[in-house]
């Protein structure tokens, strides 16, 4: 009885191992084929690179040899074009690349977008924004409007396509997102908006979800949009301290303090982050005005605020001098230590 079972088990394990060996051989053969196709792709690139150069850079007529016939041809050409986009910038070149793709690879990408494989679809979506394949934007719209569910990464890529091509509907899609995007994703998407779109968004600021509000504030700072400083100043009285801190940060990045009165009340803020941001901001104000406040902040209970205040003083032309005189007169140990450290950095 038990011997029969043993035999069965033995056969089972042997079968399993043979199966594994078979799969292994299959994978190895696949790898060999892959290696060979890679070599072929390389060969194609070597053979045709000059012709592509003539077309893309010199603007000559496209050689017939560059019309792709097989999958490997497409792979090789894609590879070459990627290299060009990475290394050469120039409107003409980009235009010719897009033109080539429109003519010869349009259907190829369209098919890829409809592929059942996630990785193929996402690669195709990447290509649309990389190569500016405007002729596929409608396909992306169809995808967005379809009932089919895509992954978060795909939706992000689709949104990015809309943003890149400054699509009119982008903002409405943004306000009703199809996926649960995070701050960083929104930041990337909003970063692509053109001036006009950005203004539309700012006009609707009050009605936006708080995640978008915060990002808009950040982007004004990141892109150095001086014309929106009044908008930022309004945010300084927001109820949320998160919003106020972000606004302070963006104003600091732009470096434009129009009215110093707006910032005084932060000196007494219960949040050390706000006091620290003010200590940082005061760099943009003449030392004669800012010094009394900075000296106060130097005695702050928070290490961060003291450190920032000392650095702000130090960045002034006469900063070192001032700090040295503070060091000589103070009897506050914390102030002394902080000033010493900042000066010590040289």
């Amino acid at each position: 009885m038990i011997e029969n079972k043993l035999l069965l088990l033995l056969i089972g394990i042997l079968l399993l191992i043979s199966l594994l060996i078979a799969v292994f051989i299959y994978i190895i053969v696949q790898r060999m084929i892959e290696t060979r196709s890679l070599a072929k792709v390389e060969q194609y690139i070597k053979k045709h690179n000059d012709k592509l150069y003539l077309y893309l850079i010199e603007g000559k007529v496209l050689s017939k040899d560059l019309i792709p016939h097989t999958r490997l041809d497409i792979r090789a050409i894609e590879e070459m074009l990627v290299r060009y986009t990475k290394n050469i910038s120039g409107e003409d070149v980009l235009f010719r690349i897009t033109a080539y793709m429109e003519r010869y690879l349009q259907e190829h990408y369209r098919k890829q977008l409809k592929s059942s494989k996630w990785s193929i679809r996402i690669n195709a979506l990447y290509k649309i924004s990389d190569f500016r394949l405007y002729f596929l934007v409608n396909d992306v719209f169809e995808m967005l409007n379809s009932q089919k569910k895509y992954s978060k990464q795909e939706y992000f890529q689709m949104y990015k396509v809309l943003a890149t091509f400054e699509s009119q509907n982008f903002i409405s899609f943004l306000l009703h997102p199809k996926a649960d995007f995070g701050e960083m994703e929104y930041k990337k998407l909003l970063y692509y908006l053109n001036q006009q779109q950005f203004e539309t968004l700012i006009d609707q600021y009050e009605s936006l979800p708080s995640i978008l509000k915060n990002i808009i504030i950040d982007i004004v700072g990141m892109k150095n949009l001086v014309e929106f400083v009044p908008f930022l100043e309004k945010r300084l009285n927001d109820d949320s301290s998160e919003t106020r801190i972000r606004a302070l940060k963006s104003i600091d990045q732009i470096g434009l303090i129009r009215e110093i009165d707006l910032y005084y009340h932060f000196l007494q803020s219960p949040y050390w982050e706000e006091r620290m941001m003010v200590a940082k901001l005061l760099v943009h104000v003449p030392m004669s005005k800012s010094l009394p406040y900075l000296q106060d902040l130097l005695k702050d209970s928070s290490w961060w605020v003291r450190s920032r205040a000392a650095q702000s003083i130090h960045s002034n032309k006469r900063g070192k001098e001032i700090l040295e005189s503070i060091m000589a007169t103070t009897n506050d140990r914390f102030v002394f230590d902080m000033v010493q450290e900042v000066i010590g950095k040289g």
Partner: protein
Amino acid sequence: MSTFTSYLLLFFGGIIFIYMLLVIFSYSMMFLYALLQLRKEYKLDKHESNEELSDITYVKPVSIIVPAYNEEAGILDSVHSLLSLSYPQMEVIVVNDGSSDKTQDKMIAHFQMEPVQKVIRQQLDTKPVTAVYRSAIHPNLLFITKQNGGKADALNAGINLSKYPYFCSIDGDSILESTSLLKVMKPIITSNEEVVASGGSIRIANGTDIQMGSIMSVSLSEKSLVIMQVIEYLRAFLVGRVALSKHNMVLIISGAFSVFSKKWVIEAGGYEKNTVGEDMELVVRLHRMMKEQKKSSNRIVFVPDPVCWTEAPENIKDLRRQRTRWHRGLLESLWKHRKMTLNPKYGAVGMISFPYFWLIECLGPLIELGGYTYIVFAFFTGGIYFEFAIILAFLFILYGSVFSMISVLFEAWALKTYPKITDLIRLFMYSFTEVFWYRPLTIFWRCEGILQFFLKRSEWGHMERKGLSRKGLEE
């Protein structure tokens, strides 16, 4: 033979049998999961998805902390490779943990270190820091000297000095690729700071061509001991981490290369000085904190990209030391936080990770050792035990070798770390032999680790002073 002994044998055999089935079942599940995961990403253009991250506006600054104890041989190379990482905003802090060799002289001379006055926020308790230096050539390179206090203490001192909100702990002997830091930071950057810690996958560097701290070409070592370790890392990677990471159940992210949120680590009290497995202990403690504060959105993740290359021990003696130590560290962490085991309060970590680590990773070696003994014993006793032993032996092969073979298949199919076909064939052949020699060896060492754990416990109070030396040959 008395009926009593035969019942006893049957009983033990039964336990081992059930255990093996359990293990084989859980491994199969995890492999299946890894298969689905890798299938999804098959042919994804990885370059594309990483590239967009390097934009300075999105990244978060990181302080890299390198604890060094008697590392004069490799410290300059490591620091050079760290300085060449492509990351827009970072500082490198080398912590000299009271080395008795020339680590300090070399660092000071080579990088033109100059003493600076620095107020250190003593947020974590450490042995006294004696001096702080800043490099005149690389302003973002700091060097601090302190009294010897062990690796955990050195890391804590580095955390105190660091100025950025995230820190990365790194072993002196690891080599990073230039994009490694970006890849490991990716989950943190993209998650609205919900990710509290992120660890990279570790690969074995022996055999690969490394020049000036960067990988030139990857190939397999000639040494069978190293090849077995390659397979082991591969399997551990597929089994545990891909599946566990997805559901926030990771308990081990390697200390060789991981990033932590400073705020969380300081709140948790920094690295624990009283264990040999400070990296795992910290991760478990963070899990505990997250659950106790009911912040369900916070996560600890594992990044599957191979990003950190480390030198594996090449001889039996060093490997044995490493493994006994690892196992002791594992047991210490599990023991210290044993309350979390099967405690629904701790969610999946308590209900799934902990039992898994206790039963399969920690106590597994004991049962397997029992299994090997049983087989040998039954072989000589004959009769009904003999047949039962054969069944067990088959299960061992299934467990020890077949899963390793499958891991190599995964490598050949999707991970593709080793480009040479001959390397793959060698890996596959070796994986088949695992159960006959390498597996028993490691089981033996791990049991030794368990033994050490109990010996150490009995002499509690004696703080063991451990250094942090190279290649996992700590002592």
